[in-house]
């Protein structure tokens, strides 16, 4: 039962990481690429670490401090990743990278 939960969470996380990578390759310009990576990487990495946290909780229950450490890692990623995305977006918008409109060339 536990194996199924852990593997399900890990596979979901890897699926979202793949979606993020494919979006980074497929989307037509910088802004839309950040749409794919900013959201999917946050949840994907969060889910992978969450799966490992559940695994740790049941198989190494003598060292629970590591669980707290992993929880803080998830929390930090959920705060820092959108902020980094925002900083990149703002820098690109201020320096005049033109957003892609429907019908433009890919770039």
């Amino acid at each position, binding site marked *: 039962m536990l194996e199924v939960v852990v593997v399900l969470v890990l596979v979901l996380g890897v699926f979202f990481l793949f979606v993020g990578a494919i979006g980074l390759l497929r989307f037509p310009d910088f802004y839309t690429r950040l749409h794919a990576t900013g959201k999917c990487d946050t949840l994907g990495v969060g889910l992978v670490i969450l799966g490992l946290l559940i695994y740790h909780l049941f198989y190494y229950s003598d060292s629970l401090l590591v669980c707290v450490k992993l929880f803080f890692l998830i929390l930090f990623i959920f705060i820092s990743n959108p902020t980094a995305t925002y900083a990149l977006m703002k820098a690109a918008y201020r320096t005049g*990278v033109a957003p892609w409109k429907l019908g433009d060339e890919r770039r």
Partner: protein
Amino acid sequence: MIEIELFQRIFLAVGLLIAVTILLCIYRAVVGPGVFNVVAAVNVIGTKTIALLVLIGYYFERPMFFDIALLYAMLNFIGTLIFAKYLERGEVCSR
């Protein structure tokens, strides 16, 4: 004991899949037109590396890797912020 061996194999497979996603991102980091695409791809690779580091910690059963993952998360975040600031203003320490 058998279960732990099973989990070791699962972790190896998941780690390899994450490595494949990193390879996909390297295309954008090398080719990507313009410096912003490169920085975004490098940030994404760094984020994926955090998950990979934690997985490695479980695969080799070395808890030290979790501290490295925490540090790497902070360094990746600060590096991206500083790079964005530099690209925006043309200098890092403006007063």
